[in-house]
């Protein structure tokens, strides 16, 4: 279980004044939990993810994974970035196997496990392509396979589908649910799409900016429904989905309005 306990982050602004980016955020991601963070830009959701990944130290509070404090980046927390960060001099399969190489896994086993992961994301035919020969959606699938390779306890995903067109995006969401259902990983997923958030999460947290904090939490079941019935349209057109969508939208915009009226 990943536990965020009263995490606060202050950055130094250009003029040296502190900027309050994250305000006493507490959050538990249970085993098989799929937590989605939703919020407008500047609400601290990426800050929270960077702290979970170990890229950013906290000003106060703590983050623990299965009882061990998070102090630095590590292979037990896989990260999928918004912009793909594949290495252009390595083939697709070498990119996927990178974490295994870092862990000292032998060449043959690396290849075998990377091939398995490529099958999981449906890219087995592109193992020896160069990353720049792939489309954006395919590159993100490689990114997911790569993050899964060292068998992390949790996947941290920072708006991974933000740069994709809406049709590719829906395919990727369904693929991610498959991956989640099959691997049983904990996932922390950032998005600014309300529909994506509702569709993917077992838990939704809504964040608001200045200072970044959690303003609402929902427990969701749509993702389990989809994993069971595989009917995305039925879920997204169901009345319960629409009600929650409007509610979440109201929460997001309410805090946006409050903040902008303060200025």
């Amino acid at each position, binding site marked *: 279980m990943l536990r965020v306990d009263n995490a606060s982050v202050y950055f130094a602004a250009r003029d040296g004044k502190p900027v309050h980016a994250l305000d006493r955020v507490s959050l538990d991601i249970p085993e098989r939990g799929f937590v989605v963070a939703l919020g407008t830009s500047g609400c601290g959701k990426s800050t929270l993810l960077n702290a979970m*990944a*170990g*890229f950013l130290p906290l000003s106060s509070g703590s983050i623990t994974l299965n009882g061990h404090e998070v102090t*630095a*980046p*590590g*292979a037990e*927390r*896989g*990260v999928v*970035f918004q*912009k793909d*960060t*594949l*290495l*252009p*001099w390595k083939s697709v399969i070498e990119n996927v196997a*990178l*974490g295994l*190489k*870092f*862990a000292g896994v032998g060449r043959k086993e690396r290849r075998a496990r990377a091939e398995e992961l490529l099958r999981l994301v449906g890219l087995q035919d592109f193992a020896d392509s*160069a*990353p*720049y020969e792939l489309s954006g959606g395919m590159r993100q699938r490689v990114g997911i396979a*790569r*993050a899964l*390779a*060292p068998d992390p306890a949790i996947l*941290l995903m920072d708006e991974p589908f933000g740069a994709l067109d809406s049709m590719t995006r829906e395919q990727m969401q369904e693929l991610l649910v498959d991956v989640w259902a099959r691997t049983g990983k904990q996932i922390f997923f950032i998005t600014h799409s309300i529909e994506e958030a509702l569709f993917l999460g077992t838990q939704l947290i809504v964040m608001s900016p200045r200072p970044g904090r959690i303003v609402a939490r929902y427990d969701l079941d749509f993702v389990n429904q989809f994993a069971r019935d595989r009917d995305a349209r039925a879920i997204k057109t169901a009345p319960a989905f629409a009600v929650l969508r409007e509610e979440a939208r109201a929460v997001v915009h309410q805090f946006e309005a409050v903040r902008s009226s303060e200025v």
Partner: protein
Amino acid sequence: MTDLVVDLAADCPSAAPPKLVGMREFGVGKRSTVGISVATALLILGAWQGASSLHLAPHLFLPSPSEVYAAAQSVFEDGYANATLWEHVSASLARILIAAVIAIGLGAPIGLVMGLSRWAKGIFDAPIEFYWPLPPLAYLPLMIIWLGIGEASKITLLALAMFAPVALSAQAGVRSVTQERVNAALSLGATRLQLLREVVFPSALPEILTGVRIALGVGWSTLVAAELIAATRGIGYMIMSASQFLATDVVFVGIGIIAACAFAFSFLMRAVERRFAPWKGQS
């Protein structure tokens, strides 16, 4: 209902082949410029031939192309200034290659470290920034006083001249590594050494190769200048002694050989870049 519009006629092959189009290009575009360059070269040769056969310049100053060709043949067969042509060329090539090995062997690692460590950057920045803008010929006398007129002074001079572009480009290469790429590697469990070997060095490689190309250019100009002043072998020396006897045709031959060598080097470097950094500009 929506109408599905499928034009069946479009599936039938038409008689005339279709007119192929592409996006309008800005600037040079993709079409080869070799033809134009060859035509320009021929034009220059023609102008040269014309100028010498019309005696526009005194014969002593501007030999005709055929005379230069004859001189090239004689230099090739009999050598010039107490050495065969191959001895001159190999002396120059050996100097530049040894110096290049030293400059790359020191410059690339030092540049990489300069990009990675504040201390290394602080330490190496001052001496490099101080000597790099100096023309190498300005400190050649010092090299000769310190290291004698043998090979050591020339190779040191060349290595110094070639070191800075390699080191500076390696440093720039490290800076071009994005924080995201580093974070990605760290979150995959990379150690510092693995990060350096698998991410930082390959990321910096295209810039290092560009630096090597610049260094070789600098190397050739410095080499010939150094040989003009203090040498008994080398293409620069050959040109110098020819000019003392007003053998303009041999001077032309020497210049032609330097141009050919430099061209071959840059051709080789391009092949190296294609082989080792084919992803350059792709992502």
